[in-house]
Structure formats: C-alpha cells, structure tokens
C-alpha cells in the first residue's frame, strides 16, 4: 500500500506530477493551484507534467533535517521539464557523478512505512 506524502501532487502508477497550465500567461505551474502563481488569473487547466527533464541543480543532504525521518544522505535538486518548468525534487543518491543538463526521469520513492514521494533519477540508470 502506497500513501502519498501529500495528496494532489502526483500519481504513483504511472509516476506523474500533477500541474496546471495557465490559459492567460501560458505558464505551467506545480503544484496545481486555483490561481496562476504568475498572473493570478483563475483560468488554469489541470495537466499532467512531463515525466522527464534535464538536471539544473543538485546537491546531497548529509544530515537529517528537522521533521525528516527518512534515509540520509539523499539527493536534492532541480530538474527542468520540457515545459520550461523547474521542479524542486529529491534525486537518487549518490549525486557525485551528476552533471548539469543530464537527462533525468521521474520515479516514485518510498520514504519509509509505505509513505511515498517523487524523485528524479538519471535516465542511464534505468538503461533507457
């Protein structure tokens, strides 16, 4: 049994992030909101975001921060989707060999006790 760490952010099967597209300023956003975070209008349509992108930033969290009970170290960074949206995300650890612009793919990761969230992992690790 998988329990999402928070409702309404992503689907588990298939792994996908749930975003929105603004009908006025045409920006994508994540998470889904009632108002576009860029222009404030209500003309936002729910969309499923791309499940792949390129690595834009990465680091590794080496000690457990307050309120976090999962494994350390873990990867943390930003992946840029083809929609032009930069997503804050966990990354598969270790990140030592990561490079700017490398191809990344979305997957679901277990934080413990069946609670799951999203993360991005290098395409090559999956042999894609």
């Amino acid at each position, binding site marked *: 049994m998988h329990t999402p760490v928070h409702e309404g952010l992503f689907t588990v099967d298939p792994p996908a992030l749930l975003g929105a597209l603004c009908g006025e300023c045409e920006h994508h956003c994540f998470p889904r909101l009632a108002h576009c975070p*860029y222009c404030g209008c209500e003309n936002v349509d729910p969309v499923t975001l791309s499940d792949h992108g390129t690595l834009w930033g990465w680091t590794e969290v080496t000690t457990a*921060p307050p309120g*976090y009970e999962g494994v350390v170290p873990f990867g943390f960074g930003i992946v840029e989707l083809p929609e032009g949206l930069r997503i804050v995300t966990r990354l598969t650890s270790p990140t030592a060999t990561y490079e700017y612009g490398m191809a990344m793919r979305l997957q679901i990761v277990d934080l413990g006790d069946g609670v799951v969230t999203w993360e991005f992992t290098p395409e090559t690790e999956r042999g894609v």
Partner: protein
Amino acid sequence: MTSVEIAGVGLHPFGRFDGVSVTDMGVTAVKAALAEAAIPRGGFQAAFCGTAYAGVAAGHKVLGALALTGMPIVNVEAGCASGGAALQLAMGAIQAGQYESVLVFGMEKMPKGIIRSTFFEPWREQAGLAVTPAYFALRAQRLMRESGITKNDLADLVVKNRRHGVNNPDAMFRKEVSAQEVLNSRLVCDPLHLFMLCSPNEGAAAVVLRRAPADGSARVTLASAVLRSHLPGSVLGEATPLSGIDDSFIPPPSTLAAKAAFEEAGVGPDDLDIVECQDTDAARELLAWEELGLCASGDQARILADGDAAIGGRRPVNVSGGLLSKGEPLGASALGQVVELVRQLRGEAGIRQVAGARVGLAHTVGRGANACVTIIKA
C-alpha cells in the same frame, strides 16, 4: 521630505547565552539605545519590534519589563528582514508626521542547527524538501556556474569575514580561519562546507529614530529603509517555491529594494564607503554584491583577490565579521547591521573603523521572500 535621525543604538552581543531569555536580550539592547539617545521615559510615541521566533507579543514583554508600555507596540515578522521591516515602518511614520520619536528593536533566540520554519508544511519536511542549507547549496552551485566563482572563492569570502570578526567583541566567532580550514570543515551540502554557513544564534539590537532637528545637528541620518518582497518565478529565490520558470528577467527582491533605496537616498553604489550584507552562506554574500549593484556578475573573484571588500580596501563589506562571524539571530540581524554602520559613521568602531566612512548600506534577505536595504549617512 522629513529627515530622520538615528539618535541612539544598542546591542546585545550575538552568540549563545544559556539562561538569558530573549526578553532579557531585548531589554539590554533597548536600554542601551534609549540611554544613548538620551530619551526620557515617555519620550518615544511608538515601538516596532522585529522577531520571527520569539512568539506572541514579544516586543510587549521587553517594554513591559522596563515599564515602558502604553504607546503602540507592533511586532513585525518578515523573516531575516524583520528588523528592516520594523525600521521601514518607523521611518515612514516619522516622515508622515505621525510620531516624533520611535523605538525600533529586534531579538531572537534560535535553536542550534538547521533552522526549522513553520513556513514549510509538515509534508515538505517529511519529504526532505524543506532543507534550508540545501537550497543555499543549489544557489551557490548556480552562482559558480553563471558567475565563474570557484569553491576557493567561497572559502576566501569566509576568510575575509572571519578575519573581520576577530575585531568585533560582539561577534560569536572571533578566531581567524584559513581557506584550507574552511575547505576541510565538514561538507554539509556540496559545495557548502560547515564554515561557509552562518550559525543561527541569539542576540538583540535596538535603534532610536527621531525627526532630525531643524538645525542640522543630527550626526547620523537614515536616508532610506526599504523592504521589498519577491516577484514570482525564481525557483531558487528565498520564497522557496516547489517550482519556477526562467528568471533571467525577473529582478530578485534585493535588487528591487536596492534600487528603491538608492533612489530615495539620492546616492548610488559608487557613493558607498561601507556595506553590511547578507552572508548567511558564503555564496549569498557574493550573489548580494551582484543583486545590490555593487559589482557586475563575474567580478567577485577579482574583487576578493584585490582585497577591495576587505577592511582597508576600496569598499569594505561586512567589517563587523558578517553573519559568518556574528551568527544570525533573525529578528536582530538587520538592526545589528544598522548598529555597526552607525558606529562606523560616527567614527566609534575602534580597531575595525573604516576611515572616513560617510555613507553605508545594510542588506538582509530571507524567508518570505523579504529583502530590506537601508542606507545611512553621516
């Protein structure tokens, strides 16, 4: 426009003080500032208190302990810029003719380690997406990529500020460090090592503002105190959203605040003799130089190498030692910078005095996002 004088400043040192309450620290700073300004009981008509963690009515507790209540007391939270926000409110009220004298103070008693913030919903902490130094690290990495800064430059920045801190009796860390020691300290979030990050800690600062006397006798005036918030878009901005877009043409809040502060004060970056700016991590100060218009992107390494930003240099930055030496008590940090600049502009900074300092700028930026820029003139 009404000129506003900084009539008195006071500080409780920044550090760790077991058994001393946040109220006690506020009392120390407030008493010192009121004494310096020679303000009698009932001599100020309002008080603004900046704090993020001290809880409900924190300012009321401080003034209650001194039997100085009765006037409006407003507690102000604007993250790392809380003190600057309080200063902006006080300055505006004096300029509007609402009050003649206003007390502004800020204090904090932060737990050790990574700052925990109610800003983040619990699920974000649980998912590992609320790690402040990790955000700092991503910002540092981007700055290195886009401005050609190296990890050695980050270390050199720490060396500069810690060297300055040696001469500040109110700082928490007063021991010089070498670049090698910085690079050998524990890796927290690559590229940031422990010594490249400031320590959340404890302290308080206070400032008394009043309408400047018509005879021009004010020694130090507050030329501008500007608070700005973020515009949407930057994924790595202090607003820490879960996503963002191309932010190449979206000015950060520090730039918005700096532009307005320069305009209001009628000065530009070249007029500044001394700067105190946000160095919550080593890269943050180098980024602030760009954002405040002190240098062009990519010039930081040269400025560090030439010593332009060190004491004795062309325009010293963080001669107090910065937050890297002082530590960061959120509500007190912006006002702590103002205290430093006032002492410098009065020529009372002792062995860390910047000779002939006449115009200074203070800057903080943080959670919200909030950024404040203050310009002070002698």
